[in-house]
């Protein structure tokens, strides 16, 4: 998960997201150009009068739910590739199930696919335990091998002279409108089993995912739980195939869970969020693909999930890029304001605290910023009620001679900042034995961060000092009332 903290990776993701959005709008245009009217289709979708629409919505929602929950466990256990392996490994099973009675009987396909998926996962475990190959190599090989076999088998079926072989190609990219009642029943059963098992054994799955050794040492059957999770995953993958397709079902396992991981620090919230995101992207994908007859469902479900993931990266309250940038901006603004106050204090100090009113150009020189910036700073101070303008000119026309003074609250804050700065310098020299010429830069940063509590402790430690290491007065609390 470190990747999300990497700026480069985030930028790359942002570009990907942009491209996805472009392709989405492109896709909508294709819908417009064909003879189906996408607005009518949209109304038809949301009114849900057609049973096929209802089934597609229920189906994709349940798929999103199952995949979101189970995928969360893959993500926190760093087994994301296992979802990929599983989804590709089921393909030969799908083909075999199809061959069983040469039709799209959901149960035959379900049994074949689940068996193939579990076989694939078991094979990964076997390769890992008998050779010294690592898990990722084993997963990569099993994934490709099973997928190759699956494609060979489905191609053979396509070339065979058989009656109803339509629908098999749906397993590659998915088509939610292909759901029938049997599929929905199967999905509902799998969803209920998944949720029930995870609810009943939540604490076991949690412990085993976090610390398998400890879980085993507490008497939890680690192997049984692991394979139970794998079986549930195989079920979920198999029932998702029709809607999402073999290639993209792993994305539905990982992406909503990854988005949830970014937004929360607690496992149960991650599960709830991942399930919600999965369901949302399911419905979204079903809706977009319904707009035109020739749009596959799977890619749109996955794009929906990816879109949610991008939102999570950018808007997540704690780790999101945008809130972080906003927080940083706010802090920069505060620091600039405090530096201005400090500069005004210095001006005042230089006049032996005689002068109270200052000109903009003085401040501009003291602060070492342009006149324009100085104007803005003073305007900000005025807005915060810390300064008042003395000239009659309107704020926009404030000239270099524009005059202003600090209000009592501004003066209070200015003294506080200077006190922080000088106290910290004194603390570094006296208590931490820094050299006097080393302390200024450090204090420049710390002055904005010291809280009231720490300041009091420093004062106590230094026995309420009067002057800083450079011999200047430290403004005391009492002196503030000017």
């Amino acid at each position, binding site marked *: 998960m470190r990747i999300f903290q990497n700026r480069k990776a985030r930028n790359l993701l942002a570009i990907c997201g942009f491209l996805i959005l472009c392709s989405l709008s492109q896709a909508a245009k294709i819908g417009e150009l064909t003879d189906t009217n996408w607005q009518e289709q949209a109304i038809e979708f949301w009114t849900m009068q057609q049973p096929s629409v209802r089934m597609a919505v229920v189906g994709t929602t349940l798929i999103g739910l199952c995949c979101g929950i189970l995928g969360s466990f893959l993500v926190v256990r760093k087994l994301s590739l296992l979802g990929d392996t599983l989804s590709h490994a089921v393909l030969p099973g799908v083909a075999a199930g199809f061959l069983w009675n040469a039709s799209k009987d959901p149960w035959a396909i379900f049994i074949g696919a689940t068996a193939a998926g579990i076989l694939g996962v078991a094979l990964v475990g076997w390769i890992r335990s008998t050779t010294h190959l690592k898990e990722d190599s084993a997963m990569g090989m099993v994934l490709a091998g099973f997928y190759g076999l699956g494609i060979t088998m489905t191609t053979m079926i396509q070339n065979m002279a058989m009656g109803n072989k339509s629908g098999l190609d749906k397993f590659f990219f998915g088509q939610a409108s292909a759901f029938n009642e049997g599929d929905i029943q199967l999905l509902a059963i799998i969803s209920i089993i998944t949720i029930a098992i995870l609810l*009943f054994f939540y604490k*076991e799955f949690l412990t085993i995912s976090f610390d398998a050794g400890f879980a085993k040492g507490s008497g939890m059957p680690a192997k049984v739980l692991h394979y139970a999770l794998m079986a549930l995953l195989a079920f979920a993958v198999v029932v998702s195939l029709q809607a999402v397709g073999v290639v993209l079902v792993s994305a539905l396992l990982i992406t909503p869970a990854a988005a949830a991981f970014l937004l929360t620090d607690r*496992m149960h919230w991650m599960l709830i969020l991942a399930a919600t995101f999965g369901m949302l992207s399911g419905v979204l994908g079903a809706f977009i693909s319904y707009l035109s007859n020739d749009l596959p469902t799977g890619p749109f479900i996955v794009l929906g999930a990816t879109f949610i993931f991008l939102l999570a990266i950018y808007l997540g309250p704690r780790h999101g890029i945008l809130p972080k940038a906003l927080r940083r901006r706010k802090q920069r603004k505060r620091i600039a304001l405090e530096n201005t106050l400090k500069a005004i204090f210095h001006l005042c100090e230089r006049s032996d605290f005689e002068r109270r009113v200052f000109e903009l150009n003085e401040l501009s020189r003291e602060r070492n910023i342009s006149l324009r910036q100085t104007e803005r700073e003073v305007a900000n101070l005025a807005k915060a009620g810390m300064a008042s303008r003395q000239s009659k000119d309107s704020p926009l026309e404030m000239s270099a001679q524009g005059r202003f003074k600090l209000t009592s609250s501004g003066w209070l804050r200015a003294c506080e900042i200077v006190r922080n700065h000088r106290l910290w310098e004194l603390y570094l020299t006296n208590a931490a034995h820094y050299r006097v010429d080393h302390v200024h830069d450090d204090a420049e940063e710390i002055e904005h961060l010291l809280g009231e509590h720490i300041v009091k402790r420093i004062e106590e430690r230094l026995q309420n000092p009067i002057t800083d290491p450079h011999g200047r007065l430290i403004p005391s609390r009492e002196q503030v009332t000017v």
Partner: protein
Amino acid sequence: MATPVISTGQSSKVFVPLEIHDLTVAYSKRPVLYGIDLEVPQGSMVGVVGPNGAGKSTLIRAIMDLLPVASGWIQVFGKPFKKSVTRVGYVPQRESVDWDFPVNALDVVLMGRYGRLGPLRRPSKIDKEIAMACLEKVKMHPYATRQISNLSGGQQQRVFLARALAQESDLYLMDEPFAGVDAATEAAIIEILRDLQNQGKTLIVVHHDLTTAPDYFDRILLLNMRVVAFGLTKDVFTFENLQTAYGGRLSILSEVALSRAQKKLEGDTHENISE
């Protein structure tokens, strides 16, 4: 809570917390532990000391039944480990888990209660109170709701210790609980361990630092694939034994550390130690 079966003569069979008989553990045919015989008496605090690759962690993991045993047997309170599960507490190495995992400190400590609860039962309010009390014992209660990656290494180690305390066991197995921990935390942890020992619990602690080992533990297990020596610290912690355990790898640094530690012990042993 069940108290360890300790009979002083009347009963014919005395079950010690840990008995190991002729244990051999191998990784892909290369033996890591070889012919280990061990009998740890109740209420002792054993430091497991030995060079890198001596099989210290392997021993702990073998006792916990986390590794296949090539030959020999291990009994915990007179039974196979699986049947004494609730009487054993465990502190694994800190690096063994992913600290980015979405749980907070209290969640982790609560996991210590799950073994007692058994399947299908949710932790009760009492379990949560016990977990919180354990966090308090290691002085981590102000951080109960912190996500665990936001804790320092020493704090993470203390959370692991609190989880083991929450297990309320009679035998504790700890794999380097002092690794990456500052001196103050180390002192705090050792105090908690002594407290456990005073309650009659048995502790087996993998330890790396030869200088502190004789201060911390009343018994030492010197390990290097086999048991070099096991017994009371003053009998085991001798130059000859350490030389055997560390072989040629006993660097000057550890020699100096050793002689310093030995001088501390001199009062008890009256042994003449070469410098």
